[in-house]
């Protein structure tokens, strides 16, 4: 039975629960928008990394460099789209 519950996955699962609770702190405590967004960004990115590395095994084959580049490039384009659009339509308008 124990072999069905590898340590990596259990640790990842507990980690994701802890990170969710950590993110909730922005609602429970009175934090400023900036601090709150930083907390959310950090917890969300770590959560994403947990999923990618512990659950999805992103680095398990020889293709890991390609896959990391594709994922991070897409993520970068996503960030640029969000930030650039807000610059054009909200902050810089």
């Amino acid at each position, binding site marked *: 039975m124990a072999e069905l519950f*590898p340590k990596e996955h259990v640790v990842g699962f507990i980690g994701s629960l802890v990170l969710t609770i950590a993110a909730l702190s922005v609602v429970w405590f009175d934090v400023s928008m900036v601090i*709150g967004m930083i907390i*959310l960004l950090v917890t969300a990115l770590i959560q994403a990394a947990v999923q990618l590395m512990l659950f999805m095994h992103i680095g398990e084959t020889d*293709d890991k460099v390609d896959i990391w580049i*594709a994922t991070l490039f897409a993520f970068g384009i*996503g960030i640029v789209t*969000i930030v650039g659009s807000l610059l054009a339509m909200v902050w810089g308008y």
Partner: protein
Amino acid sequence: MAHHVDHSQPLEYSTPQNRLNIYGFWIFLGAEIVLFATLFTVYFTLSDRTGTGPTGEEIFELTPVLIETFLLLTSSFLIGLGVHAMRLGRKTPMIVFYILTLLLGLGFLIVEIDEFFLYVHEGATITTSAFVSSLMTTLGTHGAHVTFGLFWGTAIVIQVIRQGINARTANKAFIFSLYWHFLDVVWIFIFSFIYLRGLM
């Protein structure tokens, strides 16, 4: 495909076509990242543009959102165990883990649909304001992915039950697990940057 099976690798990677399928699916997930980033762009641009309708703070409720988060996180954990069991060649535990994953996904959907009814009940329909349009479209796109996943996952479970774990079914089951984990990652961003940011 039956030819050139490489037994030194897990079954899902064991043929050239299997390796191509997994690689291609990762690239597809890159496209999905941009798709959801676009939805976030829309949401961030429109989240304060509520017109005469309610704001996020007025309609968001933490409890159902926490239930949804917990269901999806757990299902993501379970499908990881499913893949692990598959690699051990343990067909029955694999199927059990996959079915539990899909059931939790179904639970997530039910809670989310209930949440949508609540919004509508509070006067926030998809036509109320740009804010609600963007909220429901972003959540709806994620929900549609989960719904599609339920059908897809069911098809795979049926094939594993019928054919057992082989190069073909293992490949499909593994790719489906990537999809499911990815939906969990997207949900974490929705949870953080739509709900928690809105309630902050």
